[in-house]
């Protein structure tokens, strides 16, 4: 049984959690794209005025002048979405994220539990999401992803709709074909052929649908019949290590932050060392006294767990700070963790030349043949205690080895 957790108008819902005064007004979130401002996401009230994502902001202002227009915060929405994902991942490893701009959709495979147990688990999942994020999800339960998704779309928030096995086609039959993943052209053809409901599509012979609409049409036909055998793809939650420090009073002294950064780097290094992993991304998040948040990310070329490198890079991030007010909370995340390549320790270093040196000595015979042996020399220690510096070392022509 698959559960589909749906939070419609997700971005607007997150914004409303941040600012409760936006709860009832039509809300339009905008972002700058190329030369113009465009609609990033909308609330349900704004959608009723015909405002859609990717629409020009000017057009949205014309359609609904009384709406509140605020800049979108995609990283904030992404973070909340990831939080929900990791929450669900604690119950089952089979968690698959869907679209999270128009609505947050997450599929979760609940396995082979009894129907009542699945309902209880789904109810618990919904409660957990609501408690942690204060966002109200709708939950659909069915044997396939598509019927579960349609079930979640069909009911209101904070509710669960369970489609018993075998009941999928009868549940879907009266619903509109717009629930299917259709492009404009196909939608137009369906309209011309008078196919308005999923039941009408499902009633058509499979062969006729294949002839008329090809393989994609055949798949849509199967979905309309309630048959969706796509498995839930297990989504790996990227692991990270994070350290948070809260200040009693706002701090705006950069040296204090730098000193704290070094301490945090040491702590992160110890944790990463214990995991045998290195971080490829360092992220610094500061909560400022004026309720604002400052974020900066650094992508490292090589993953590291070295305290020095972590401290140096963190110091670089702190150097870039532009502090308008004091810092009340500082969080450092070491993300995109990967296993650090194991290296064979060499007890007899003088016998085994380093990799680079080997390459040079593989090349030298060719170079000596071309330019002569006088061109290449090695420095030999002849007499370390010699009084004159020029007698301490001597040069010896390299032999092509």
């Amino acid at each position, binding site marked *: 049984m698959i559960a589909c957790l749906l939070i419609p108008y997700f971005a607007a819902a997150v914004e409303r959690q941040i600012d409760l005064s936006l709860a009832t007004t039509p809300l339009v979130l905008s972002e*700058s794209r*190329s*030369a*113009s401002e465009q609609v990033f996401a909308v609330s349900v009230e704004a959608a009723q005025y015909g405002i859609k994502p990717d629409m020009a902001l000017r057009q949205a202002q014309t359609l609904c002048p009384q709406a509140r227009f605020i800049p979108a915060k995609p990283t904030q929405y992404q973070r909340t979405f990831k939080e929900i994902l990791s929450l669900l991942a604690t119950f089952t490893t089979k968690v698959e994220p869907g679209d999270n701009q128009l609505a947050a959709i997450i599929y979760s495979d609940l396995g082979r539990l009894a129907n009542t147990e699945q309902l209880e688990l789904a109810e618990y999942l919904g409660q957990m999401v609501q408690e942690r994020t204060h966002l109200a999800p709708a939950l659909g339960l069915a044997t396939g992803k598509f019927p579960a998704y349609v079930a979640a779309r069909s009911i209101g928030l904070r509710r669960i709709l369970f489609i018993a096995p075998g009941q999928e086609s009868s549940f879907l039959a009266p619903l509109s074909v717009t629930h299917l993943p259709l492009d404009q052209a196909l939608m137009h053809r369906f309209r011309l052929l008078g196919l308005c409901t999923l039941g009408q599509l499902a009633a058509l012979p499979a062969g006729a649908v294949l002839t008329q609409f090809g393989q994609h049409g055949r798949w849509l036909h199967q979905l309309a019949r309630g048959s969706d055998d796509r498995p839930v793809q297990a989504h790996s939650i990227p692991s990270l290590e994070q350290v948070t420090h809260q200040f009693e009073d706002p701090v705006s002294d950069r040296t204090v932050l730098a000193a704290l950064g070094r301490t945090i780097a040491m702590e992160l290094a110890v944790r990463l060392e214990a995991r045998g992993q290195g971080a490829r991304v360092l992220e610094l998040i500061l909560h400022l006294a004026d309720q604002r948040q400052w974020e900066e*990310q*650094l*992508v*490292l*070329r*090589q993953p590291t767990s070295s305290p020095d490198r972590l401290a*140096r*890079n963190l110091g*670089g991030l702190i150097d870039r700070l532009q502090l308008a007010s004091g810092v009340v909370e500082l969080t450092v995340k070491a993300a995109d963790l990967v296993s650090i390549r194991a290296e064979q320790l060499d007890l007899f270093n*003088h016998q085994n030349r*380093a*990799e*680079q*040196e*080997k*390459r*040079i000595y*593989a*090349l030298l015979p*060719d*170079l000596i043949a071309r*330019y002569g042996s*006088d*061109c*290449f*020399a*090695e*420095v030999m*220690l002849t007499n370390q205690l010699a009084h004159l*510096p*020029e007698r*301490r*070392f001597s*040069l010896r022509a*390299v032999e092509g080895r």
Partner: protein
Amino acid sequence: MSSKKRKRLAATVAAIQRRWGTKALSRGERTLRPPVEIPHISTSFPSLDQALAGIGGIPRGRLTELLGAPTSGMATLALKIMASAQPDGQTAVYVDLGRTFDPDYAARCGVNLAQFLLVRPANGLEALEIGHSLIASRGAGVLVFDAVTHLLADPQGAQALSMALRQLLPVLAKSPAVLIFLTPLQFGSAMSAANYPSGFALPHYATLRLQLKKEKWIHKGRDVRGYQARVLVLKNKLGQAGRQATIAITFNGVVRGDST
């Protein structure tokens, strides 16, 4: 900006994008990417590493030029960079065109001479060809050319050398090597930072150009214990140029590069 100006700017941007495509212009904040750490080797002088904004040292896979009067600390800085790279298993190569390499001084600078190759080519073009082969083999960690004045004495001329340099750059970009050219100044009126030989494109290809100036001797009592030099970042393609750092080189037995 007034709304009229904003509209005019928007119309101009739209016209440019219509003609040259949407990617011809983009907003500043859109083009910013999370800063990426640039692979580099420390100079052994913390103040200089700090002055090399955006890098934190001498960048790998790039060309660096050190300029300065003789005894300003160019060769010492190059040797210190070599010494800094060697603990990571990097091999240092010194292309000694002037035949002035002093192994004892290199050892005192911390260079591990067991992980070191000295190259003494016949002329400048040959030096660049050998350098090309060594970099292409990915065998060299640090490659120092001492000095540009000897390169330019090549009968092939500055243009042939510039062409060889151009061929060297794509190979260098794919390798982890640090390539350093030492350019002694004040050998004649032609060799100064302001009046560089016009035919030689080294300053154009260099990612980093550092000019060293000896500021003062460091005394202890009557003895000269070292000297203080100022390093000016003339060019930095990866960060802010124009910064300065003061370094101190003491040579009482062991050359220690300390920042001041």
